[in-house]
């Protein structure tokens, strides 16, 4: 009898451990996990920024032929980093703009985004279209050296890069934001280039159209509807939340990788800009995460105002609250009629 009891106890112990293990393995598949980038892409990428085709002269920072600056109307918050952006479109190619919300770029397209902490160069990110598929993009960051003379590929990313508070994302992390749209490119779009932010020598929607670089020219620019407060809030949410929270995400093959799997939609579609109430933000967020007239009771503002693991929005590459963004959203929520 005692022998039987002992055997049962042993069996129970083993079963408990196996169950724990199974439950934990299940818990592993979470929102925050991303798949690796194929090593062949990283191995084939240039080791140095100077070999990516951005500058013809690194010393004088002279842009290479065909490389042009641009600036989106609304920017992703990056803990106050100063950012500059450039684009290179292969000669003779056009951007497929049949879907005005999700442009498809020709193979050979390159986009760079440079991050500075004050005046110090920290990193420059590269997106390069490698093949015809929607996901055939190289995503890679280059970390600037001490001499500020060149930057070197850092596919593993970097924590507190160059002694600053900025973190350089690993190559596998880029898809967390960029993978939320079929276009993959986020800041270079019809809506973002319609806001007049690029300046005189920068690329904007009108210049792309004038140069015949769009397969289906829109014949217009796109304005965000509403008052100044509403436009600021809708634009902020589009740039900081819309790439994950939108209903037109590409189908997922691997990890969730910041796919929120909920009905919230902050993406500004160019077809839905007649009034603020027509935008997905108003239709999906109001009374859900936004309580009209009550900023302090709005979950959206709570998350944007917070920093801490799993309790912040946006969730990646930021450790500081965007105070300006909080003000924009607070003003907007306060002015919403209850």
């Amino acid at each position: 009898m005692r022998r039987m009891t002992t055997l049962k106890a042993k069996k129970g112990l083993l079963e408990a451990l196996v169950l724990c293990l199974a439950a934990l393995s299940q818990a592993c598949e979470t929102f925050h996990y991303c798949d690796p980038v194929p090593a062949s892409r990283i191995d084939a990428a240039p080791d140095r920024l100077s070999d990516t085709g951005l500058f013809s002269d690194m010393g004088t920072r002279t842009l290479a032929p065909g490389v042009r600056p641009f600036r989106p109307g609304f920017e992703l918050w990056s803990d106050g980093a100063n950012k500059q952006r450039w684009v290179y479109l292969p000669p003779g190619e056009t951007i497929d703009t049949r879907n005005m919300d999700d442009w498809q770029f020709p193979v050979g397209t390159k986009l760079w985004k440079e991050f500075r902490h004050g005046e110090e160069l920290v990193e420059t990110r590269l997106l390069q279209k490698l093949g015809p598929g929607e996901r055939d993009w190289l995503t890679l960051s280059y970390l600037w050296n001490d001499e500020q003379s060149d930057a070197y590929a850092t596919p593993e990313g970097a924590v507190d890069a160059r002694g600053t508070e900025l973190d350089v994302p690993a190559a596998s992390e880029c898809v967390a934001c960029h993978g939320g749209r079929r276009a993959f490119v986020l800041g270079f779009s019809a809506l973002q280039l319609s806001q007049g932010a690029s300046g005189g020598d920068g690329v904007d929607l009108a210049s792309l159209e004038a140069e015949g670089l769009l397969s289906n020219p829109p014949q217009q620019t796109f304005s965000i509807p509403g008052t100044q407060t509403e436009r600021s809030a809708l634009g902020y949410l589009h740039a900081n939340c819309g790439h994950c929270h939108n209903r037109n995400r590409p189908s997922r093959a691997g990890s969730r990788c910041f796919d929120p799997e909920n009905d919230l939609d902050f993406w500004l579609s160019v077809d839905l800009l007649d009034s603020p109430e027509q935008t997905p933000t108003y239709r999906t967020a109001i009374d859900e995460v936004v309580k009209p007239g009550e900023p302090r009771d709005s979950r959206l503002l709570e998350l944007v105002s917070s920093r801490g693991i799993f309790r912040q929005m946006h969730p990646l590459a930021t450790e500081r609250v965007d105070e300006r963004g909080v003000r924009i959203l607070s003003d907007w929520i306060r002015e919403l009629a209850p």
Partner: protein
Amino acid sequence: MSRVASKVLTAVLAAVVRTSGAAAEEPPQEAERRATDAIEPSADLSAWTSLRIGVVDAPYPSATLGEVRSEAGQARLLRFGAAARVAPKVQVGAHAAYVFAGVEQPAGSYRAGSAWGNPMLFAMLSGADLSERIGSKLDGDLSLSIGVPVAAERGPRYEQLDRRTLAIGGALEGWVNPEIYTPNVLPIALGGTLFLPRDYFQLELGLELPLLVRLSEDTIPNGASTSAIGFIPNGELRVTTWPWHWLGLSLGSTVAWPIAQPVYLSSRRTAAQAMLTPRVLFALGGEALMSLDVAVAAGGPASGTASAALSARMGL
């Protein structure tokens, strides 16, 4: 043999035997004899396993990454092993570790990492009764372990995912088992433990001297340098009492001192790491023991690391 996960359990298992109901039925003299047997479980064959879950925040030898982190509950460590008695006071055995963890990336996402530690083969000479020499009841054991150098970085060099996963496993245990979690080394460890049984509790002092002979410089992290041999001595002090024959309480502390790391940043100091390890033990008859323990970093480089483990040991 790994002290924290197995020798301690071995000792505590025997302590259970000492204080179990079976022992209580015996004359006092015989019960005291069982205390001497505390390091020598009665079963000729025994097996143990444990599952540890926790959060890790520990330094990592890379210029760009600098630290390794795993979120709460997503740093997990499965350990298992077995031992056989080949002579009255000699046991041989093996144990292994498998780490599976969410490895935090710099911007805040995670990668699912999993890696085997170095399986260890060990021989343990136990039951050396030193009582007559010092005039007090004192037992001890000695163990010699050698590892199979399985732990390595198998993915792309730039990712360091396997290395970081192993570093998470090592930090979960407070760096007291570097022979298991250090990749690309041949680990050899000499260990010893002293047991001081008293009427109501048992004191235990363990020391382990692991030598890590570096086998290759493959896949070392960016910015890291190496030394040919790593040496990370570690020790444990523990007191255990059994208020009831089925329930034991134990409080311990471990310290690991990385005098020489096989792979390190030249700018990084080799600071010691202490962990507090309270434990609750449940005796299930005379042949099985279950324990629940907590390990919390007491400051140090891995401050913020904490875990809980469920362990079981059985005589077969």
